[in-house]
């Protein structure tokens, strides 16, 4: 692509992820079918070969994340995508990617659970994504798009962050942003400077030192040092890479906090509140890790109250409470996902009035 005037196209969110990935230089896709992300493997299977890449349908989610691990260790930009139950199966591999300091993109077009649950828009995987669904003391980059344009842009951004920090990245979408269609701009890949991949395995090729990609550290103090190094990278992300959208926050007395699909609906409710003369704004975390703690801490100095809205029974609200740190009341409104349980703007407006 990489044209100077961006193409304007009408795309599904899931399709936008594919074009974003290809524009970002991703050439390897490994996955296993699951609704509601099926457009991603379908489009990748037809598009990647055109760009000299490869699509491979794995025998399972477990295999696909490990194929990504191998491809990443060999230097490729690679991705996998799935939905909640499949992401659970990938957790072992995600932990190994984190432990081995390997980049790679994992797209979760999440659905409702637990168990088989349903395929409706859901934010029930927040804990799993940001608190480390796999074992060990690791963090991963988690980005939460709320529009088709962001599905495209944040996919590219996720690859860059993942390479820069040598850490897996997750794009946490939901069936609403995955399935809806919007007109978007296929912008060219932004110019970014990234560190050279001088660690990938290539076969020694005359090199003196062998290269080893591993996560096992048994020597005295080795693992502690490794974990401290991983945490230092997480700290650097917290310091440098937080992204959040601010909606009508200047004089807001009540601050809504919502991401992804919930934020889309909440935006309309905020507009309704403003039209009714209520001083209501919204903070929409775009990076769920690193979480916009500082934004919230600052808002806690001026706003009276917070209202966290999620498509679950209360997950991100725990992080909002931590950031607000008891200085203000934090209310919560959530609907457990399932068919017919997507809140309406009117419903959220009611909640705003109650919390105001």
């Amino acid at each position: 692509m990489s044209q100077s005037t961006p193409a304007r196209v009408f795309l599904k969110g899931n399709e936008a992820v594919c074009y974003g990935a290809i524009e970002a230089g991703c050439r390897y896709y490994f996955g296993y079918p699951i609704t509601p992300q099926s457009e991603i493997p379908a489009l990748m299977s037809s598009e990647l070969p055109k760009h000299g890449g490869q699509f491979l349908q794995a025998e399972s989610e477990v295999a696909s994340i490990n194929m990504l691990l191998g491809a990443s260790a060999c230097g490729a930009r690679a991705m996998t995508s799935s939905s909640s139950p499949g992401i659970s199966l990938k957790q072992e591999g995600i932990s190994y990617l984190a432990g081995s300091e390997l980049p790679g993109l994992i797209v979760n077009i999440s659905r409702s659970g637990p168990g088989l649950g349903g395929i409706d828009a859901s934010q029930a995987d927040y804990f799993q994504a940001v608190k480390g669904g796999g074992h060990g003391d690791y963090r991963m980059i988690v980005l939460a798009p709320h529009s088709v344009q962001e599905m495209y842009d944040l996919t590219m951004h996720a690859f860059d962050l993942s390479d820069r920090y040598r850490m897996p990245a997750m794009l946490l979408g939901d069936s609403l942003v995955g399935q809806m269609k919007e007109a978007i701009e296929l912008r060219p890949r932004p110019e970014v400077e990234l560190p050279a991949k001088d660690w990938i395995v290539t076969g020694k090729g005359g090199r003196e030192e062998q290269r080893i990609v591993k996560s096992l550290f048994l020597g005295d103090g080795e693992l502690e040092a490794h974990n401290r190094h991983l945490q230092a990278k997480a700290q650097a992300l917290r310091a440098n890479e937080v992204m959040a959208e601010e909606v009508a926050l200047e004089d807001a007395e009540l601050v809504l906090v919502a991401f992804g699909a919930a934020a889309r609906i909440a935006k309309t409710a905020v507009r309704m509140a403003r039209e009714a003369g209520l001083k209501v704004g919204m903070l929409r975390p775009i990076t769920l890790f690193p979480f916009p703690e500082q934004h919230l801490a600052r808002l806690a100095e001026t706003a009276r109250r917070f209202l966290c809205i999620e498509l679950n029974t209360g997950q991100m609200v725990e992080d909002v409470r931590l950031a607000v740190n008891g200085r203000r009341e934090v209310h919560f409104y959530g609907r457990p996902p399932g068919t017919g349980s997507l809140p309406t703007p009117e419903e959220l407006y009611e909640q705003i009035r109650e919390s105001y």
Partner: protein
Amino acid sequence: MQTVFERPQSLKDVPSHFCPGCHHGLIHRLVAQNLDRLGLQQQTIGVASVGCSVFLYAYLDVDVIESPHGRAPAVATGAKRVQSDKFVFTYQGDGDLAAIGTSEIIHAANRGEAFSVLFVNNTTYGMTGGQMAPTTLLGQESATSPGGRSAERDGHPIRMAELLAQLDGVAYSTRVAVDSPQHVRQADKAIEKAFRLQRDEGRFAFVEILSTCPTNWGMDPRRANARVAEEMIPCFPLGIFKDTQSQEGNQ
């Protein structure tokens, strides 16, 4: 004086951590000498598994990726697809390949991925302390088969070389042992053949190697070696179960 035996270049000059009489070290040597023989050291990516062999990179002087338990064939698939001009092999134990990783090995073999698999069958989970493996012999005592493996309770030993030979993606599937000088020479040839099939034809080859675990078998190394011939080979016959080259040759 003529040198008749020396350390292969691909094998590092370091002390080994393996238990006395364990065959992993010997098999590492066979791998190294074949990498040397075929001129592959500089272009090799080894994929290490979980188990006693996880330290593959400590002994072989090649680039190595360490993979989660059982997933080496998936990791190797990703690696080889990206660097298709490199030589890739996995090195896996029986717990790794025939239990937790059964799905990954069957599907990588069935796809005919262009890498080689070395499967070290010692009829037990060595590293975790001698539990029952899918390859544990009937009647064999282990930490988790008190009174011996029972077919009714635990099922039968699984024969991976025969099983994989059924798959169209497989070019070569063989079982060898390293309990005697003659068997070691056969194992050497089998590994060479597998490696050649990848290097020259981009084919998937599988070499199962019967080996010992004296510590977990509760035997001295000599007795353990004898057990390979007396008890293992009758259950896991040596031989070539598939060789597409020789079939083509026969036509």
